[in-house]
Structures are given as structure tokens and as C-alpha cells.
């Protein structure tokens, strides 16, 4: 039943793609509602927080093709959930010299992690900087488990991050910018967002602020919101971390790109997460 539906939408998508040629180079984000498993309502359009440059905050889901959107409505079809399940296993597996798992300290993730995905990056007093879920995992691994930190995008980092953020599925993103020096990191991130880089001389704003809704060749440009990360990317057939996406977008301007979790990209994560304030967490979102 579900399958036929997808094939039908695929067919329709094929037809629109053909009529797209040379004519429709701009398209409004689709006017639809995202409900996952017929019960979890996802806020994909929100009123912007004060000081936001756009009139409405819109999830990347609205800019994707019908078949990609469809995949996200059903947790059985969404291939990102394989990663989430893997993450759950890691959550419960003891590692390191202390013989502890995440569950040893945090118990049931559906309770202890319920707000994490919606409120990170968060000020970390001991590290004196904002941390995202990946950095918090590494902190727990080294400080509490006696385990090696995960290398960027390696071993359990993406599935465990996806599992933790998925506990906030449907919750609206809201950062606490009053904590510690969050505001200073936000300001630095904003600078990065508007900085033109590379031989092509483009900033994040060139594509995601000025041109969201426009096609850049076959890609329908979204606002570049981060509420679905790690996202399952159909093109690559795997979960894609946020810092991988950041680096990819910067690389596309023909620039050298900063290291994952560098201060520059952490500032950018704080700022871009704020730009998506009010959108529901969609992890693991499906994108092409």
C-alpha cells in the first residue's frame, strides 16, 4: 500500500522535473504539514525570534521532493532510523575503564535526554564554551567513562547523536543565549554566516538567506536550518552530521574549510541553530 503511494509520487516528481526545465527556476516551499507516524506533529513553519532577518522560519523539509518528504512521515520507511537503533545499542553498552555506559548515568534516554536535541548547543561551564551533542558525548566518554573520544564522524558519533536528538522529536528548538558567553559565540557565528569565502565569493547568506526558494541547478535552496541533523542523505545513503554539511557548503565556495568542532564552526552552529528557533527537532530528517 505504502509502496504504491511512493511509486506514484515518484512518477509525479518525474513529470514535474521535466516541466521544470528552463521554466520554473523558483518554487515556493510546499504548503503541507509534516506528521510522523500519524501522531507526532512537526512544526515546520514558525514565527521568527526577534532580530531574525526572515519573515518566517521554514524547515528544509518543505523544499524537498514529494518522495523525500514522504519518507520522513514514517519511521519504518525513514532509513535514518537504522542509525537511531544503532545509537540506542551504543547508549546501553558499557565502554572504557570505568565500565559504564551512557545508561549507567542517564538511565532512560526518553526522559533524561528529552530536551537535549531542542536546547543544544548549550553553555558548558567547565569547558568554558558552548558544546553540541557530539562534544558532550566526547566529554562524557573521557571524563566519566574512561573511554577514548570519538573522532569526527567516526565509530558511534553519528548514530549516538541521532539517537539522543531523536528523543526530542517534535520539540521546538530554543537556545539559552543568556548562559555564560553564549552571546559572544552567537556574534562570532553571525560574522561567519555573512562572511564571503572562496573563489566564488559567497556567504551562507548568499544561498540560504537571499536565495532560499530558488533553484541552484537541480538543488532547491532551503533556509539551511539545522533542526533535522544528523540527516539521512539519500544521495550518500547515510547519516550526515551537521559539521560535515557546514564543511561541504563552505568547500562549495572553493574555500579551505575549518576543522569540525573548531571554534569557528561551533559559533556558526550556535548562530544557525538560533535561526531555526521554533522549528521542531526532526532528527533524523531525510534529505536528498
Amino acid at each position, binding site marked *: 500500500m505504502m509502496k504504491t503511494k511512493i511509486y506514484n509520487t515518484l512518477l509525479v516528481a518525474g513529470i514535474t522535473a521535466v516541466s521544470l*526545465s528552463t521554466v520554473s527556476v523558483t518554487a515556493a516551499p510546499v504548503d503541507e504539514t509534516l506528521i510522523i507516524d500519524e501522531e507526532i506533529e512537526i512544526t515546520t513553519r514558525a514565527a521568527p525570534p526577534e532580530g531574525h532577518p526572515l519573515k518566517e522560519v521554514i524547515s528544509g523539509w518543505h523544499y524537498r521532493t514529494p518522495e523525500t518528504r514522504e519518507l520522513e512521515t514514517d519511521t519504518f520507511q525513514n532509513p535514518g532510523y537504522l542509525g537511531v537503533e544503532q545509537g540506542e545499542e551504543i547508549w546501553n553498552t558499557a565502554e572504557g575503564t570505568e565500565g559504564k555506559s551512557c545508561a549507567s548515568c542517564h538511565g532512560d534516554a526518553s526522559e533524561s535526554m528529552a530536551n537535549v536535541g531542542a536546547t543544544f548547543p548549550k553553555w558548558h561551564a567547565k569547558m568554558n564554551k558552548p558544546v553540541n551533542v557530539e562534544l558532550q558525548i566526547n566529554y562524557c566518554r573521557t571524563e566519566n567513562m574512561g573511554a577514548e573520544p570519538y573522532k569526527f564522524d567516526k565509530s558511534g558519533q553519528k548514530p549516538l547523536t541521532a539517537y539522543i536528538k531523536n528523543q526530542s522529536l517534535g520539540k521546538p528548538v530554543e537556545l539559552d543565549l543568556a548562559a555564560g558567553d553564549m552571546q559572544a559565540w552567537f556574534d562570532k557565528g553571525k560574522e561567519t554566516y555573512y562572511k564571503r569565502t572562496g573563489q*566564488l565569493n559567497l556567504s551562507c547568506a548568499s544561498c540560504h538567506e537571499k536565495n532560499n526558494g530558488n533553484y541552484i541547478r537541480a538543488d532547491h535552496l532551503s533556509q539551511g536550518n539545522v533542526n533535522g541533523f544528523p540527516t539521512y542523505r539519500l544521495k550518500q545513503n547515510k547519516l550526515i552530521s551537521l559539521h560535515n554539511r557546514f564543511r561541504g557548503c563552505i568547500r562549495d565556495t572553493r574555500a579551505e574549510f575549518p576543522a569540525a568542532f573548531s571554534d569557528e564552526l561551533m559559533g556558526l552552529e550556535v548562530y544557525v541553530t538560533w535561526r531555526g528557533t521554533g522549528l521542531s527537532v526532526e532528527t533524523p530528517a531525510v534529505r536528498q
Partner: protein
Amino acid sequence: MRVQLKTLLLGALLGCSTALYAGTIAPGDVKIEGLAIADSLTGVAGDAAEGRKIFANRKQGNCLACHANSEMSEHLFHGGVGPSLDGAGARWQPEMLRTIVVNAKAVFTEETVMPGFYSLEVGENVREDLIGKTILTAQQVEDVVAYLATLK
């Protein structure tokens, strides 16, 4: 030093090293007067057929990423970031088209998202192997301009 040699070699292979062509105006020496660049950057006339290929090629002009162009209906996806280039050759003199391709900022505003294809006024942290290089060579610019002039 080794890196430098490698880049030089690569540049030569890709035809990026503009200095290789005698009589070619270097990116820093291009004179823009009244929004126009009067003469060919190489002294050689552009080849419109070659320019058409450069226009669509993702590794070269990739103009189609941002512009629709009915004359290229064989390509499925055209961008909508810039205006359609249908009739561009009727709207603009070739001397102005040359300026737009060389450095769009000189014709539009500093804020334009259109890259300068023969300009060294680029963004920060340029990829190491592209430092000091332009996106297109002078002759490629001439070829693209010749092609644009046919879009009447």
C-alpha cells in the same frame, strides 16, 4: 616549493595560468570604463560554440547553476538565482557583457552573488590551489561573451 611547482603544472594543464598567453591582459590590469571593457582580453575573438560549452560546464562557467537559458533546453536543470539570460545579447552591448562576466560587482553592486570570473577580488580563505587564479581564463571569458552575444 614542491607545492608551488605542482600548482604551476596543474595551472598549465588546466590552462589557468593566464601569463602563458602573450598579449593577454592580467586580471589586475583590466580597464573598466563606463561599465565597459572595450577590447578583447586576449586580442583574439571569442568562439561562441566553445563559450556555449563553458557556460554549461559545472567545472568552468557553470552559469546554468544560477541562470535559466531557453537556448539550452537539452539541459534539464536551470538555476533561478540570477535572471534568465534569454535576450541578454539584445539587452547588453558585448563590452558590457564582458564586464559582467569579468567582475559582476563592477556593473551591479558589491552585494551581487554573481562571482567575478576574471577577477582576483575574491572571498576569504580561498582554496590553496586556487590562490591567485581566476575562475575562467581570459580566452574562456571571450568565448562566453561571444556566446552571450548570440542570445538575442
